[in-house]
């Protein structure tokens, strides 16, 4: 029985991530169109308009991936065939896997069973996420190398250098979070944010670690090579950078990796700083507002609300990243490295040290 629950959780976590990606694809298209004062993609139709109705958004959801899958898969003549298909696989599997440790709810109580809504309940989820982010580099470096093209190679090496430069800052921001909560388990961190500060304000991470939030967000966006840090793609300079020579579904997979990373950064920010699935004042048996007012809510509804809250927050932070992408100009490569090593890294270190000192100094005080 436990096995079935675990299997369902695994599939649910995966589906959450996948549907996020599809939705983001559309949001990116339409959102960027909105920002740039144009209409965007609106020509997707089923059967060329034979049907009397138009499914609207759903068309674009399906059209982009389906189109991509049906394109021809071209591998350049001198390219390394084995590496050519290995690169997208190695690039995306680690990213898919991170969602196995993201908690999407508290507990689901079905009769005798209390199911913890986190697909893989290791005690060290954060380490897994870091490991997978580290492995994500291989997609880029192999993709660039495999195509045997100067543009791709250059894009690949620059992209890899960028990714590893910001991995350190990301790690430091997360160290600060771990310091604050004393655990490597994401579900526990989400739970710990259910308390109230001074009995009124929910103890979300953003109040404890604002600097870490900023660092994580910036480093996360740089890590996923999103604009304003999208030099390795550099659409107007290196064609498509390290995935120039990829077509059809392999190219789709690389682009998907982009969106999955957006979702990962959003999930991290949500869980560490904004309470994850927490709804303010909502506990297992209902609302308990400060001042004593209580509303009873059945447990299943509580779980549902928490899952919805998680999805909404996730979506919100993905939306913010898309906004940032279409608002800021691209950063120069040396500025990018500058930011990573000379500003975020010292800031991250200082943040950790200050947090540590504060924790020790304030021991005994409860906030």
């Amino acid at each position, binding site marked *: 029985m436990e096995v079935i629950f675990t299997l369902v959780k695994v599939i649910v976590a995966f589906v959450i991530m996948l549907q996020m990606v599809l939705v983001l694809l559309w949001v990116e298209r339409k959102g960027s169109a909105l920002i740039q004062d144009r209409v965007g993609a609106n020509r997707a139709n089923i059967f060329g308009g034979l049907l009397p109705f138009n499914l609207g958004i759903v068309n674009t959801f399906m059209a982009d991936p389906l189109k991509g899958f049906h394109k021809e898969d071209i591998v350049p003549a001198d390219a390394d065939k084995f590496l050519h298909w290995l690169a997208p696989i190695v690039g995306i599997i680690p990213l898919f896997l991170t969602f196995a440790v993201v908690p999407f709810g508290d507990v689901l109580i079905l009769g005798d069973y209390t199911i913890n809504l986190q697909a893989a309940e290791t005690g*060290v989820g954060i380490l897994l996420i870091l*490991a997978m982010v*580290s*492995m994500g580099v291989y997609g880029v470096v*192999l993709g660039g190398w495999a195509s045997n093209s100067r543009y791709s190679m250059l894009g690949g090496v620059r992209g890899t250098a960028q990714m590893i430069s910001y991995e350190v800052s990301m790690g430091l921001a997360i160290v600060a979070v771990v310091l604050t909560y004393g655990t490597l388990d994401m579900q526990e961190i989400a739970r710990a944010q259910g308390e109230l500060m001074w009995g009124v304000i929910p103890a979300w991470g953003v109040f404890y670690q604002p600097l870490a939030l900023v660092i994580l967000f910036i480093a996360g966006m740089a890590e996923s090579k999103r604009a304003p840090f999208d030099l390795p793609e550099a659409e107007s300079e290196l064609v498509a950078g390290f995935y120039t020579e990829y077509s059809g579904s392999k190219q789709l997979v690389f682009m998907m990796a982009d969106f999955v990373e957006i979702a990962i950064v959003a999930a991290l920010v949500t869980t560490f700083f904004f309470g994850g699935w927490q709804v303010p004042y909502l506990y297992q048996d209902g609302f308990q507002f400060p001042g004593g007012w209580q509303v009873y809510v059945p447990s299943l509804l509580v779980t549902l609300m928490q899952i919805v809250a998680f999805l909404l927050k996730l979506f919100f932070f993905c939306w913010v990243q898309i906004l940032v992408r279409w608002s800021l100009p691209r950063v120069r490569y040396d500025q990018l490295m500058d930011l990573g090593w000379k500003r975020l890294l010292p800031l991250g270190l200082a943040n950790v040290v200050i947090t540590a000192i504060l924790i020790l100094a304030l021991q005994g005080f409860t906030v």
Partner: protein
Amino acid sequence: MVLFWILAVLTIAGALTTVLHRNPVYSALALVFTLFQVAIIFLALDAFLVAFLQVIVYAGAIVVLFLFVIMLLAVEPEEPLAGQLPLRISAGILCLLLVIELATLSTLPGISNMAEPMPEGFGQTAAVARQLFSAYMLPFELTSVLLLVAVVGAVVMARRKAS
């Protein structure tokens, strides 16, 4: 038990590919594969922290450095030199002797029943951390000096080449 044998075979296969393959990029990838298998073996032994650290640092950073160097130098797939055959044969024999020696030693009565049940919390982050920062504090601090030396050395050598 079955899991261990599967992992062992995979690890050895990966290691052999690393050493024997002509193309250095493939060797590096085989190294990543081997490291992954070792990490899973760590997981099977309940050493959770070390398993993930293995992936983060070794597979995720050090092999990336290897790949950079390989691509930087545009290392060609190597051709076997003439006259290497006697060397290869003797190397093979020595390796075989090593394997036989290790196998014999590990099944000797004094060593093979040395395993005891692990203390509570073995391999958990907290337990490892406690040991690391109390009993092993000096090696920990020395590690930082070692890393410092690595950084300074790398910078010095790189800049000498450039100027």
